[in-house]
């Protein structure tokens, strides 16, 4: 596990740059990923996605289908990409502290 430091906090990350454990997630991590993703300002819409992802993950142990995320937030996939340029998996899940989605997704 590699370590990254941001604003005085240290995080262990996997080789895709995802946080090692959901329990280590915190506001500083969000700021760190925001910078990495090249997102200027976090809006309510970003947070809506983060919250939906986290709620689903707590219940089911994996990320939701993209279509479920889209349906629950009311955001089309294109808009999710506008909010998170790396997409729902590599961008939004990363910021929300979920592990990188696995398999052919």
């Amino acid at each position, binding site marked *: 596990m590699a370590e990254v430091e941001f604003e005085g906090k240290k995080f262990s990350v996997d080789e895709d740059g995802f946080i090692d454990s959901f329990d280590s997630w915190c506001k500083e991590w969000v700021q760190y990923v925001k910078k990495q993703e090249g997102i200027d300002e976090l809006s309510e819409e970003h947070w809506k996605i983060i919250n939906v992802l986290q709620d689903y993950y707590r219940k089911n142990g*994996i990320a939701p*289908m*993209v279509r479920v995320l889209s349906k629950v937030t009311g955001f089309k*996939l294109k808009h999710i990409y506008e909010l998170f340029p790396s997409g729902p998996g590599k961008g939004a899940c990363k910021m929300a502290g979920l592990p990188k*989605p*696995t*398999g*052919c*997704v």
Partner: protein
Amino acid sequence: MSHHRAQISINDISKATDQFRHIDPKNLKKLPGDEFDETAWTPLKDEVKDKYAAILDDTCILPIPRPRTKEEEEAFVNKFIDGMRKSFTKENNWTFLAMLETSMEHCAKCNTCSEACHLYEASGEDPMYRPNFRSEIFRRIYKKYVKKEPFAKWRHGDIDLNWRTVARLGELAYRCNICRRCAQACPIGVDNALLAREIRKIFSQEMGIHCPELHDKGSMLQLATGSSTQMTAAVVKDNVEFIDQDFSEEFGYEFHTPWDVQGADILLIHNAGEIMAWPENIAAFHMIFQAAGLSWTLSSEITAYDAINYGTFYDDVQFARTAILHASAAQKLGVKKIILAECGHAHKALTVIADRVLPVPLKIPRESCFPLLRDIVLSGKIKFDPSRNNFPVTLHDPCNVTRLMGIIKPQRDIVHALCPQFREMTPHGAHNYCCGGGSGFAIMHRNNIAEWRYFISGRKKLNQILNAFSDCRGPGEKKYVCAPCSNCKGQMRDLFQHYNLMETESMAYGGLVELIVNAMVDVKPGFIKWEE
């Protein structure tokens, strides 16, 4: 053969340098359009280069721990040679030994294979990517150190065997899409792709070195949870129920997915990645199967709701474990056959390789979805309006469906019937080119692997796609690339995004069943979407 690049000899592979070759983006094969010029590779991080033997080219796909001492270097080489020895014994490699030996003994070194390889061409004909460059290293090591042929080094050429030779060979096994286009071109039948896979097998089965996406987060997860996506039976059923409701509602066509129906004719197995990322493919299949009145079911047994078998990419043991679970689920349900949905590697796994692995009682018939879909579409049971598909469509041929299995006409019967503006790529069918994501790469984003897919492995396919639409380039006209394979779609998604093809070319990609449902009269128009 216009480029005369610095020539290399096989023995250069053993040299004590930090990086064997650098691919200059300037030398990459030109794409049709000025907007596609590549600039530079994102350099590998120092920590990656320190941890792993990333000493081949500009990226690192197989994470080989860098040996730290003389002893570790020796142990690394010896383990590889031990593994190679086992590859040539019937007890350890009955599945592939015959083809392996053919490929070892009969190569005439004509290099016809180079001309067939999209990686070699796309890279600007870098000699490192010749299919036979890798094979020849493997062959020389085998003749001299395993088979110990008399005068091997004079008869077949010498090789200096050190840890760098082995590490670079391991990485070179992951500079091949295992598309087998070179095997098809070989006048003798030498299969360089098979050799690449045999090298991958030695690294995984004997040395415990594999790509995390394929092993720890791939086949191991599938065996533990039922799917490499980590969907459990409860989650997958929940997701498919959502698909049923959501698509029924949106398209005014009510359908229900049957689960675990004892004695159904067909067990349909999807690549579970479709459920997570491309649910329209799942919905389309289930709408068609229901409309056709088939007797069918999905299974919630472990692995039987995920057709993937990542062992296909790198490991026969992991392969067998998964294939047996797939077949056992079908046996338990008492179905007449398994139908594989749109996943090329699943086709290769369960219809081709599994024949060499499954015991007789588990040899339940296993078939591709494409002939069945053709029969449904041409049967007249479902009403179609092809004018709904009146946009330019081209068809990508997944290597494992077309070249490996010879299923070429059924897909075409469908698109000829339903897509007025269908056009072929050049070449196509058995002579197709890989999407560039084949053999496991499509799901890899570590380091700068995605760049390697954009710059090199996906380049030929992108070239073909753009040329297929040469009469309608630009954002004005909506186009559809039909890529009926999850892996190919993953590669298309990344390619399209990297080269901005949704915006600049109004290009969408998707499967074959989506085109079928898009033309179904009983389904609300607009099943295929561009804007999302």
